[in-house]
């Protein structure tokens, strides 16, 4: 009788662990792993639960995964190179005479970008030519620039300080 109760309790816990952590025992809590695996060694019901969890994960693993195209990478690098927010933060300092740390930084940046931007633009141009989606892409790029131009530094800093952006009610 006691044995049955224990087994029942173990099976209930196994089901809970499978729902939370999945079918891979390596991801189960270390403190419970051995006992749950032992249960699977003796109980058909435990093996059935694990089999179901494995089958579900085989289906879950068919969810599409994206790989970035070179065109997307080029689009991102180009957007950063032409970013009006970073530019606004840096450009005014170049107008001042002298060789402050900032102006050196700007000069260094100015030397670094052209090659990367040229390469990115070339790849981006090829992509636009082939795909014919240039209008939408340029529209997106300008939209991002316009939104961030309006937000300015205050927006950027608030992201740094609290980038969770989640409400307490969303926690569960």
């Amino acid at each position, binding site marked *: 009788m006691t044995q049955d109760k224990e087994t029942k309790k173990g099976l209930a816990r196994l089901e809970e662990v499978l729902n939370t952590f999945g079918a891979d025992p390596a991801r189960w809590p270390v403190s419970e792993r051995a006992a749950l695996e032992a249960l699977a060694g003796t109980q058909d019901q435990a093996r059935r639960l694990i089999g179901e969890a494995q089958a579900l994960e085989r289906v879950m693993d*068919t969810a*599409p995964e*994206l*790989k970035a195209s070179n065109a997307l990478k080029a689009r991102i690098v180009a*957007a*950063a190179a032409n970013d009006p927010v970073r530019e606004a933060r840096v450009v005014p300092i170049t107008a001042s005479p002298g060789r402050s740390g900032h102006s050196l930084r700007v000069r260094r940046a100015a030397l*670094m970008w052209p090659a990367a931007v040229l390469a990115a633009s070339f790849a981006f141009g090829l992509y636009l030519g082939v795909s014919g989606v240039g209008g939408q892409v340029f529209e997106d790029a300008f939209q991002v620039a316009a939104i961030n131009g309006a937000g300015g530094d205050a927006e950027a800093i608030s992201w*740094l300080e609290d980038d969770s952006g*989640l409400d307490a009610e969303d926690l*569960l």
Partner: protein
Amino acid sequence: MPSHEAKPPRAHARPGASQNEARQADKALMARVSQGDAQAFQQLVDASIDRVLSVARRMLGDDMEAEDVAQDVFLRLWRQAEHWEGGRAQVSTWLYRVTVNSCIDRMRARREETVDELPEVSSEATQHLTLEAEDLQDYMDAALQGLPERQRVALVLFHYENLSMSAVADTMDASVEAVESLLARGRRALKKSLKSQWKAFLPEMPE
């Protein structure tokens, strides 16, 4: 066009350097990015974009929107580089968090747009998928999109991104217990909504 690929086998442990080493490497790379170093930025994009893109794709169920999220996230990173505090978080954690939040914003905007036309999707609703799915991947995609957003985030980060429970909790700004509850509810909902699909994969059991 982006390419879809099957999910690679999951590693049991996160490979690579210790957290401290990773933070130091992040700090050095972000310092270069803050100087306007295009190569460093390109390096960051190359190293992280597939993760960002996959999370966004699984969250939103839309390739083009996922690409827009990726661009937005990296542009934010570019702007944040000057303010980066190496001790606070790894770049990867920051990227996951901003990606997830950006996706949630988009999902909420979508919901506001369609609230008059469609009932709110719940995990119960996913029990009866009515879409005309062509294959398993479509069913899975639809079931994932049918989950409440926080359950979806937890599953995407824990199952697909293979993050530890504490890393998921950190990214979601939630307790470990809350994440465990979200995962259990999410997986239960998927198990119900995809019953006829996963049953086909059941191993033979002795009578």
